[in-house]
């Protein structure tokens, strides 16, 4: 195993200029992905998880978006410093991306075959016949029957699950070292969702691809990821091995997320247990703990005095909370918890 991680993101800052002011979508985000591992990024809408992923590929629309600072080291190179043609050579070739909505992520006027061979033509300089043979291989690999014939079909002739399989085939066509899956199953129903996740997992093992899976679905992460990081208001608020995060969450936000999952063995008629309040406005972010207005363990004078840094709470497990809070900590606002 190489000592340096495949991807390491350092102090990433992404901002969007809007009429109301500058939206700080990603703030000081630092993380890494090792070769072959699966990293889950969890968070609610607007927490910056998709923007983080898009900035790795330098796909943030500019204007209004801007990567305001930080480094994205991929295999020893800072992607943010690359020229556009060099970056194009990375996209689809060494880092690939699967998008959320397979219904609209395929061009409706081109056959599936032409879309799959697109990146083969772009990056591998294959001849038409070779590209076609490879496309058939890829479709078989993602489990599409009569692949050879279906290459000449158009996207509207495929179901949602089949289209997501095609998207995965497109993403993996050049054997990328890193696959970013941005909510790959959100638009699919539950059974298809399981099949697609199973497929990604299988292919990852076969090809040794590192995967970043972005989702708001904790169930997806639990089944897929080796490590999880939780994002809130553009910051990473907790990160650690998947089992740790689920068994021993140390950040009140993560605890809230886990408590809000309905359980099959709950008594009938029990209400859902949501986190109260709303995520903060990313335009006027005060220098306080971003979760403090919604936190059950809020301590006046401490939580609203600084942005809590990520600190080690267990081996390989870090949380951005000033206090040692666990699932067992009683929810009694005002009761001081020792730091």
């Amino acid at each position, binding site marked *: 195993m190489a000592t340096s991680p495949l991807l390491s993101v350092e102090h990433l800052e992404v901002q969007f200029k809007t009429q109301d002011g500058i939206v700080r979508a990603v703030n000081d985000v630092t993380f890494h992905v090792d070769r072959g591992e699966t990293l889950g990024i969890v968070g609610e809408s607007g927490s910056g998880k998709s923007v983080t992923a898009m900035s790795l590929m330098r796909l943030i629309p500019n204007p209004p978006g801007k990567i305001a600072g930080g480094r994205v080291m991929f295999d020893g190179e800072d992607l943010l410093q690359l020229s556009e043609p060099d970056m194009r050579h990375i996209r689809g070739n060494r880092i690939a991306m699967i*998008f959320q909505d397979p219904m609209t992520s395929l061009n409706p006027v081109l056959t599936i075959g032409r879309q799959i061979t697109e990146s083969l033509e772009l990056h591998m300089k294959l001849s038409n016949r070779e590209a076609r043979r490879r496309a058939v291989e890829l479709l078989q690999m993602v489990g599409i*029957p009569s692949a050879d014939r279906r290459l000449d079909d158009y996207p509207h002739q495929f179901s949602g699950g089949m289209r997501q399989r095609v998207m995965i085939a497109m993403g993996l066509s050049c054997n990328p070292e890193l696959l970013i899956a941005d909510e790959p199953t959100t638009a699919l129903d539950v059974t298809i969702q399981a099949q697609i996740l199973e497929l990604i997992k299988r292919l990852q093992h076969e090809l040794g691809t590192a995967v970043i899976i972005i989702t708001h679905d904790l169930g997806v992460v639990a089944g897929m990821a080796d490590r999880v990081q939780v994002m809130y208001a553009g910051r990473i608020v907790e990160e650690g091995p998947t089992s740790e995060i689920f068994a021993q969450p140390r950040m009140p936000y993560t605890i809230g997320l886990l408590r809000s999952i309905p359980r099959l063995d709950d008594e009938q008629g029990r209400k859902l247990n949501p986190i109260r309040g709303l995520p903060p406005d990313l335009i006027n972010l005060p220098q306080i703990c971003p979760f403090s207005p919604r936190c059950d363990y809020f301590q006046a004078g401490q939580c609203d005095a600084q942005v809590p840094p990520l600190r080690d709470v267990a081996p390989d497990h870090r949380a951005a909370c000033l206090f040692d809070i666990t699932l067992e900590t009683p929810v009694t606002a005002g009761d001081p918890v020792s730091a």
Partner: protein
Amino acid sequence: MTTQVIAVEQPVERPVESQWSIVRRRFLRHRMAVSSLILLVVLFGASLLAPWIAPFPRDAIDLNAQFLAPMSRNPATGALHILGTDHIGRDLFTRVLYSARISLMLAVLVATLTSVIGAIMGLLAGYYLGWVDTLITRSLEFISTFPFLTILLILTSLLLQSPDLIPIPGAFIALIQYGTGVPGDEAASLALIVLALAVLSWTGTARLMRGMVLSVREQPFIESARALGASNRRIIMRHVLPNSLPPLIVDYTLAINGVLVLESALSFLGYGVQDPTPTWGNILAIAESNMLNHPWMPLVPGIPLVIAALAVNFVGDGIRDAFDPRSVLGGAGATG
């Protein structure tokens, strides 16, 4: 898992149909559009054969046979003038036949130029946005604030008086000469009119295209193409353009129609295609000055002009319906 998938997702046997073949099939079911298209082809085809089937040479002047009514015979030679003659005794059937090719060709050329210029401008503006968009949008706004007809009249009269003002590529003149079948010197002045019309009328197409591109460029498949490493040029040519094409095609047929009528109006005012090159428009212009004494005269070029304009319109209608998945054609039922 794989076996399950095969069982569930086995595709139903059906012919593979591209969007274009669906459109073609739906168009062919539109009766008015198809008959209009056939009519236009026949009209143009007959005009192509004019040198062989026309009863007289195109510009043969016969001062013994001025203002002959339709179906009358030449007093000197006894030859039949099916649609009569004009003020200098030229056979109108011959001239109307020749002018079908010229008028339709001019309309197609201007519409093509307009659509190409407009589409390129619209694509650039809508895709790149920023200063490119500002530049193109402002300049097309500037052009559309011109009083169109006045500028056109000034431009054409200027160009017709001093043809060397703008150097026109020989290939373009040759194209017009080949397309319309007129002699070289006439082709040069036709080229001027084609250019003048095209330069002033691309703005509508550009706007249409820009709007289309603005919506297409936000589609997820554009982003996914970019994530595959496609360059801007590739994205424009392969993803944006094909998806913005349907309204452009409809706009194109309507532009043909517009030019057909505009050229007549221009000729009618005396600034269009110059005599002796015949077009429906300038035959109409001559007829107009003699209309009170010879009321049949405007009808001779007028009727084919109206029929052709209507036919082009119907074809455009047919294409639009063929592209619109919601339209139901003549109760033919659901379509693919």
